[in-house]
């Protein structure tokens, strides 16, 4: 999204938005909840909670199986949610959307199915130094199994991908590039469109981990040009259990099943099974039906708020929070990318992240403390653990003021 389009987006009415999230009706440790852990999982708006309850109470049955009214209705709602995800990602066809539990499962699906069919001895898979474990370990396992090599494109001290090193790491041996759209620790937004063009120039397929990007900005997979795009429903203000993988139809069509069993077959005899068309081929067993409907409701909700407005809101808060934390001499921010979004990770001299997490919790402030499933990245910056405040559409300056004040109190306590 261009800066001009961002600034044209209306400002968010945070008070009204908070009123739409029942969690903010409760106090945390007797105080107004400052929820700064949306990067781990987002809170749910009433629209999502109601949609799941309504569907479960009035329209529920298993899908694609029954011939009766309820089953037809449930199937229709489930497929409408798929269409909703298609629109959210700007995909060409609904059959390019596969429902999965989470981003981790989406990446595992691609590694197990596409990976085993296309990556062999001597081939390479290229990832980056800023990946979440979910975008490292499946490729590591695949490479080990196939005798392929896992290559890692380095990042700079500011936490940006080293583009020239990335370019040099690409070759005709590169079969797949797996890269995060937005880093869950650094907040760095990668130039995915450019990376995809570079990778395609070498004939490599591109998978984008969109877990942190999808809730924070408009995404259009056709504009990005990537081949696979995965995001988590629960980070996108939907329920846990329903997430999506986008895959270019041509690639999905040629891929073998991931899990096998019911719902993904065309016909079964004891001698041979033929598999269903995409996307059913990749959805063995009864899926998270009500949760998929809830995800559809979450995407509707994000539409009414406007992703461009959310992007601008979080960008403003990020600048504000960065200034507050920079003013504290004991704080070292991790990640100073020029294009940064949604996430503030930091370490505090003299205060371990875990102790900080406990102290902030006592003030009703929820942050993440630890390695955030990115141990190699933390090693790159020479720290074992960090504190992470991640933003959502319901955060405001007061949340960040309280964060900074509590960090100062923790420093005083441990001095």
């Amino acid at each position, binding site marked *: 999204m261009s800066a001009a389009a961002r600034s044209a987006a209306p400002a968010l009415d945070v008070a009204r938005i908070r009123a739409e999230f029942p969690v903010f009706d409760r106090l945390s440790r007797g105080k107004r909840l400052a929820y700064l852990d949306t990067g781990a999982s987002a809170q749910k708006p009433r629209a999502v909670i109601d949609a799941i309850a309504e569907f479960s109470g009035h329209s529920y049955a298993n899908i694609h199986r029954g011939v009766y009214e309820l089953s037809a209705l449930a199937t229709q709602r489930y497929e409408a949610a798929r269409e909703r995800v298609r629109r959210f990602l700007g995909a060409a066809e609904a059959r390019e959307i596969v429902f999965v539990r989470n981003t981790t499962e989406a990446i595992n699906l691609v590694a197990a199915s596409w990976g085993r069919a296309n990556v062999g001895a001597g081939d390479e898979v290229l990832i980056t130094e800023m990946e979440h474990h979910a975008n490292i370990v499946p490729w590591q396992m695949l490479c080990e199994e196939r005798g392929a090599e896992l290559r890692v494109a380095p990042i700079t001290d500011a936490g940006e991908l080293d583009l020239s090193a990335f370019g040099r790491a690409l070759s005709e041996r590169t079969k797949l590039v797996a890269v995060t759209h937005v880093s869950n620790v650094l907040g760095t937004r990668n130039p995915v469109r450019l990376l995809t063009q570079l990778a395609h120039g070498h004939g490599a397929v591109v998978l984008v981990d969109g877990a942190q990007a999808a809730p924070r900005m408009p995404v259009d997979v056709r504009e990005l040009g990537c081949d696979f795009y995965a995001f988590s429903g629960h980070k996108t203000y939907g329920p846990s259990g329903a997430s999506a993988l986008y895959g270019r139809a041509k690639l999905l069509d040629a891929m073998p099943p991931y899990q096998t069993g019911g719902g993904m077959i065309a016909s079964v005899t004891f001698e041979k099974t033929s598999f269903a068309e995409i996307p059913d081929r990749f959805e063995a067993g009864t899926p998270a039906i009500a949760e998929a409907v809830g995800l559809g409701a979450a995407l509707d909700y994000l539409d009414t708020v406007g992703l461009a407005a959310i992007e601008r809101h979080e960008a403003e808060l990020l600048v504000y929070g960065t200034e507050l934390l920079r003013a504290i001499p004991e704080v070292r921010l991790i990640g100073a990318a020029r294009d940064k979004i949604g996430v503030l990770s930091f370490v505090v001299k003299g205060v371990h992240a875990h*102790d900080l997490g406990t102290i902030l919790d006592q003030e009703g402030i929820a942050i993440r403390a630890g390695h955030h499933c990115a141990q190699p990245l933390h090693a790159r910056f020479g720290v074992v653990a960090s504190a992470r405040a991640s933003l959502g559409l319901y955060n405001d300056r007061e949340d960040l003021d309280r964060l900074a004040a509590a960090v100062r109190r923790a420093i005083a306590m441990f001095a």
Partner: protein
Amino acid sequence: MSELRELYQNTILDHNKQPRNFRVPAGTTCHADGHNPLCGDRVTVHVAVDGGALRDIGFQGSGCAISTASASLMTEAVKGKSIEDALRLFDAFHALLTTGGEASEAIGKLAVFGGVREFPMRVKCATLAWHTLRTALGGKHETVKTE
């Protein structure tokens, strides 16, 4: 804030800043590594066992205030004790943290960890060094994990 002061008592803050026995003792006979994968805390406990007693003990590593102070206070508490008494003390310490039993007299200074009980997510921080000690005394050179 009062629960927080109860958790981070002055003794704990002091042992975090200046850990005691933060060293490898001479004549070490056994050691073990402890790791809390959730927060990245790592501790190595070294013991010099002599005639069934912990003649000397030290630790190294890095972690949060609770785990560092716990390791430090543990080394003071078990130094000179028989292996049996040291393990019995671990049981009493564990009970203090989890079941909420009154601190027995034997537990002494370790009673400062009573506040951890109100923070279930932090119990593993306080017990990491102790689990590691038990492994070291058991002679198994494997990494202990608490999560």
